[in-house]
C-alpha cells in the first residue's frame, strides 16, 4: 500500500482532508504521536492523517483547574507545564504520545481507583467528524451538564468517531508527598483481600496493586526485586503531614512489612502503570492482555485461567485490573476465547500487545453483545457514516 501522510496544521485543513477522504472513499488512519500504532487492531488505510502539527497550549489557568490544548500537543509538554504549577492529570496517564492519542485511547494509571480515567477528566473537545464537519462538545469549565457529554464518548473511541483537534481537560493539584506500604509473601487471594481492606479504610488509598513473585522479581526497585517473593502494595498520597499520619495508621491496621518513601514509591508506581515487569505495552515479547473485572473476582478469574494457560499476571486497582502475559507462541484466538470465557463475574479483556498479524486475526477488544454492538454501530454511523476514520480499529466494520 502506498502510504500518504497528510499533516494538517489547522482545523480547516483537517476538515479539508476528511472531506477529500469522504469524496474519494479513502479511509484515513489518524496518528497522534504515532507512538502506539502497534496496539489495537491494525487500521487498513492507504492514507494517514497526522495530527501532530496541531500542537500547542491554548489556555492554562491553574486556579480554574482547566487546561486547553491542541490535540497533537505532546504529553511531555503538558506534563512539564503542569508540573511547573504543582499540578497534574490526576488519572495518571502513561508517558509519551499526544493529548489526542491519550484521550482517544481512554487510558488511566493506578490512580484509576481514586481519580477515574481519561474520560472523567475530559471536559471539552473540538474536532472534525467523519462527515467532514467541524464541531465541538462539552465546555471549558469543570462543572457542565449542558447537552450530551460528547467528550466522554471520545475517550476510548480510538479515533473512530472524530479527528480531535482541541481538548480541554480538568487538572488537579499534584500530591505533595507519597509513600507505599508493602506486604510480602501473600498469595493472590490473600493479597486482594488485603487490598480490599485498605480500600475500605477511610485513608484515601490511591494505588492498590499486587505483584506475584515472578513479576516482583523483575522490578527495577530494589526493595521489590529483593523481597524474594510476592509483594502487595498500597499507596498513600497527599500533604506531608497527612501522608505521615495515614501511613502510620494503615501500617498498623494492615500489619505492613515495610514503607517505601517518596522516590522509590514514584519509581515503583511508574512500573505498575506501564506494565513494566512485562516489558510495557510497546515492546516485543509475550502477548499482553489487560482485564478489567470486579476487583474481588480478580484472583478467581486468574485461578481459572492458570488451569489451561501458561500465564503470568499482576494485579492493579485492588484486583480490578489484571495484566496477563502469555508466551508469544500461544495461539491468540484460542487464548482470547479462554480468557473471555473466564470473565464470569463480568468485565472485559483487551489484547494490548501482540504482533500485527495476530492482532489482525484476533478480537483485540471484548466483543459486545449484539444489541450493544448494533447500538455502537449506529453511534459510529452518526459521526462517520462512510467509515472514513480509523476503520476496523476497534471492531471489524466499526
Amino acid at each position, binding site marked *: 500500500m502506498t502510504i500518504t501522510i497528510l499533516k494538517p496544521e489547522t482545523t480547516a485543513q483537517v476538515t479539508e482532508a476528511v472531506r477529500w477522504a469522504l469524496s474519494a472513499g479513502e479511509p484515513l488512519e489518524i496518528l497522534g504521536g504515532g507512538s502506539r500504532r502497534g496496539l489495537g487492531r491494525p487500521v487498513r488505510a492507504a492514507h494517514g492523517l497526522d495530527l501532530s502539527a496541531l500542537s500547542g497550549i491554548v489556555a492554562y489557568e491553574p486556579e480554574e483547574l482547566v487546561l486547553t490544548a491542541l490535540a497533537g500537543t505532546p504529553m511531555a509538554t503538558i506534563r512539564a507545564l503542569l508540573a511547573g504549577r504543582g499540578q497534574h492529570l490526576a488519572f495518571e496517564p502513561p508517558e509519551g504520545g499526544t493529548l489526542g492519542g491519550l484521550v482517544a485511547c481512554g487510558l488511566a494509571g493506578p490512580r484509576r481507583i481514586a481519580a477515574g480515567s481519561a474520560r*472523567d477528566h475530559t471536559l471539552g473537545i473540538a474536532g472534525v467528524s467523519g462527515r467532514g464537519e467541524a464541531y*465541538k462538545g462539552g*465546555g471549558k469549565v469543570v*462543572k457542565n451538564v449542558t447537552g450530551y457529554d460528547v467528550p466522554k464518548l471520545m475517550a476510548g473511541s480510538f479515533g473512530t468517531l472524530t479527528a480531535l483537534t482541541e481538548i480541554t481537560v480538568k487538572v488537579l493539584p499534584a500530591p505533595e508527598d507519597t509513600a507505599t506500604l508493602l506486604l510480602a509473601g501473600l498469595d493472590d487471594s490473600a493479597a486482594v483481600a488485603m487490598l480490599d481492606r485498605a480500600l475500605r479504610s477511610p485513608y484515601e488509598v490511591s494505588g492498590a496493586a499486587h505483584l506475584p513473585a515472578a513479576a516482583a522479581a523483575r522490578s527495577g526497585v530494589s526493595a521489590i526485586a529483593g523481597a524474594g517473593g510476592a509483594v502487595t502494595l498500597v499507596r498513600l498520597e497527599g500533604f506531608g503531614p*497527612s501522608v505521615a499520619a*495515614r501511613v502510620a495508621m494503615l501500617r498498623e491496621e494492615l500489619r505492613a512489612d515495610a514503607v517505601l518513601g517518596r522516590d522509590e514509591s514514584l519509581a515503583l508506581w511508574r512500573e505498575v502503570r506501564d506494565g513494566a515487569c512485562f516489558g510495557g505495552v510497546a515492546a516485543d515479547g509475550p502477548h499482553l492482555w489487560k482485564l478489567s473485572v470486579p476487583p474481588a473476582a480478580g484472583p478467581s478469574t486468574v485461578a481459572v485461567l492458570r488451569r489451561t494457560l501458561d500465564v503470568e499476571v499482576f494485579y492493579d486497582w485492588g484486583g*480490578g485490573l489484571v495484566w496477563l502475559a502469555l508466551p508469544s507462541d500461544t495461539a491468540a484466538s484460542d487464548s482470547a476465547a479462554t480468557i473471555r470465557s473466564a470473565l464470569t463475574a463480568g468485565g472485559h479483556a483487551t489484547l494490548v500487545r501482540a504482533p500485527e498479524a495476530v492482532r489482525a486475526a484476533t478480537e483485540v477488544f471484548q466483543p459486545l453483545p449484539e444489541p450493544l454492538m448494533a447500538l455502537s454501530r449506529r453511534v459510529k454511523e452518526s459521526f462517520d457514516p462512510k467509515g472514513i476514520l480509523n476503520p476496523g480499529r476497534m471492531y471489524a466494520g466499526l
Partner: protein
Amino acid sequence: MKMPVPDSGIIARRREIVEALRAIVPGEGVIVDENELRAYECDGLTAFRQLPMVAVLPGTVEQVSQVLKTCKAMGVKVVPRGAGTSLSGGALPLADGVLLGMGKFKRILDIDYANRCVTVQPGVTNLGISNAVAHEGFYYAPDPSSQIACTIGGNIAENSGGVHCLKYGLTTNNVLGLEMVLMDGTVIRLGGKHLDAGGYDLMGIVTGSEGLLGVVTEVTVRILKKPATARAVLLGFPTSEQGGDCVAAIIAAGIIPGGMEMMDRPAIHAAEDFVHAGYPLDVEALLIVELDGPAAEVDHLIDRVEAIARERGACYARVSTSEEERLAFWAGRKAAFPAVGRISPDYYCMDGTIPRKALPLVLRRMQEMSDRCGLRVANVFHAGDGNLHPLILYDANKPGELEAAEEFGNDILRLCVEVGGVLTGEHGVGVEKRDLMTDQFDEADLRQQQRLKCAFDPDGLLNPGKVFPTLHRCAELGRLHVHQGELRFPDIPRF
C-alpha cells in the same frame, strides 16, 4: 417557551393507547383520571404545567420494555419520570404523550462491599443509597440538595451533583453500570461492577442525557468510605472580589476542599434571619470551606486555609470546633433557598457555570441587570467549581413579573456563556434553557448531538421538546453532503 404542537391524531387514539398499555401493566398501573394525573403535571419547574395524555407505572423491566415497544409501534411519545424534582422541566409531560413513572422501581438489589458498589433500581432515592450502607461507614458521594427526594434514575438522567462534587465528582464519575431500555424495547447493559466499561463510553453519553436516550432500569454505583473527620471554616469578606480571590488562592495552594460554598449579602441575611446560624451580617461575601479526611490532614489544612483567607482580606473567620458547630455553618447554606422564599413571594433559581475568575464581572453585571429590571437577586453558589445559583426574587401575582424574571434569568445564562462558561452546571437544560442552547453551541455542534439521539431513538419519541431548540428528523440529520472533485488539499503538507 413553546412545546411541540400536540398531535391531534394521537390524542384521538387515546382510548386505544390506554388499552394497549393496560394489556401490559394491569390495574392501577395505568392512570387516566384527570385528578390523579394532576400529580404529574409538572416537575420542580412549576411555571410550566401540562397534563399527560395518560400515565403508566410499570413494575418490571419487561413491562418497561413492552410499554416502549408498544409506544414506538403506535408512534406515541414517552416522558420518563423519577421523583419529579427536576428544576429545568425535564419531566414536564406532553399532552399527546405517555408519562412513564418509575416510582415502583424502589428496590436495593445488591450491596457489595468487597467490590465497593451498590446496585439499585432507578426509583431508589439518592439518600436511600447512602442510608443503606451507612452502618458500614460507607456513603454515595454525589449529594444534590434534593437527595432526600430525588431518585438515582433522575440523577443519572441529569448527571446531578452537589456540594461534594468538586472533590468527589458528579454522578457520571460515580456510576459503574447501567441497565436501560431503548425506545424499541431493547434492553441493554453498560458496564457492571468493574471500572472502564469497554467499547464506546455509552454510559458517559446516557448520564446527563435528560431522559432522551433510554429509560434507566438498574444502576450500579460506587460507594466510598466516609472520611474520618470533617471540619468547616466560616470566612467573611468585605467584597465579593476578595471572596473570589480567596477561593482561587486556596486552589492554587493545592487544596481541594470537600465543599466550598459562597453566599452574597442578600443570601446571608435571608439565611441568618431564617435559621440563626450565627453568620456575620456586616460582610459582602461569606465562604464556607469544608475539609474532610484524616484528622491530621484536616487540622493541617484548616490552618492553611485560615492563613490564606487572612492574606486575602478576610474580615471574619471562625473554625468549627464541634460537629454541632460544623452543621450549624451548613444549616444556613442548606436553608438558603427556603430562606429566600420567605423574603419574596416567589423566586426563580438559575444555574450556570462560569470560570471563577469572571466572578466579579458577572456579579457586577448581574447587579446592573437587577437595577434595570427592578427585580432583586440573591446569590448562593458552589464556589469551588464556579457553579452559580442566582435566585431571582419576584411576585407571580404582579402582572409581567414572571416574564421579567425569566428574561432576567436568560440574560444571566447568556452572560455565563459570554464569559466562557456554560448554561447549566447541574440542573440540566430541559425545557427551561432549551432555547438558549444556540447561545452555547452552533448548528454543527447541535446537529451532531441530535444525530447521537437518532442512534438511540430514530423516531424521536423519547422526551421530545426537551434540550434541543429545533426538532430535526433523523433522516434529514443523517444526510451526508459529499462534494466530489474538490481540490486535493493543495496546501496541506504531505509526506
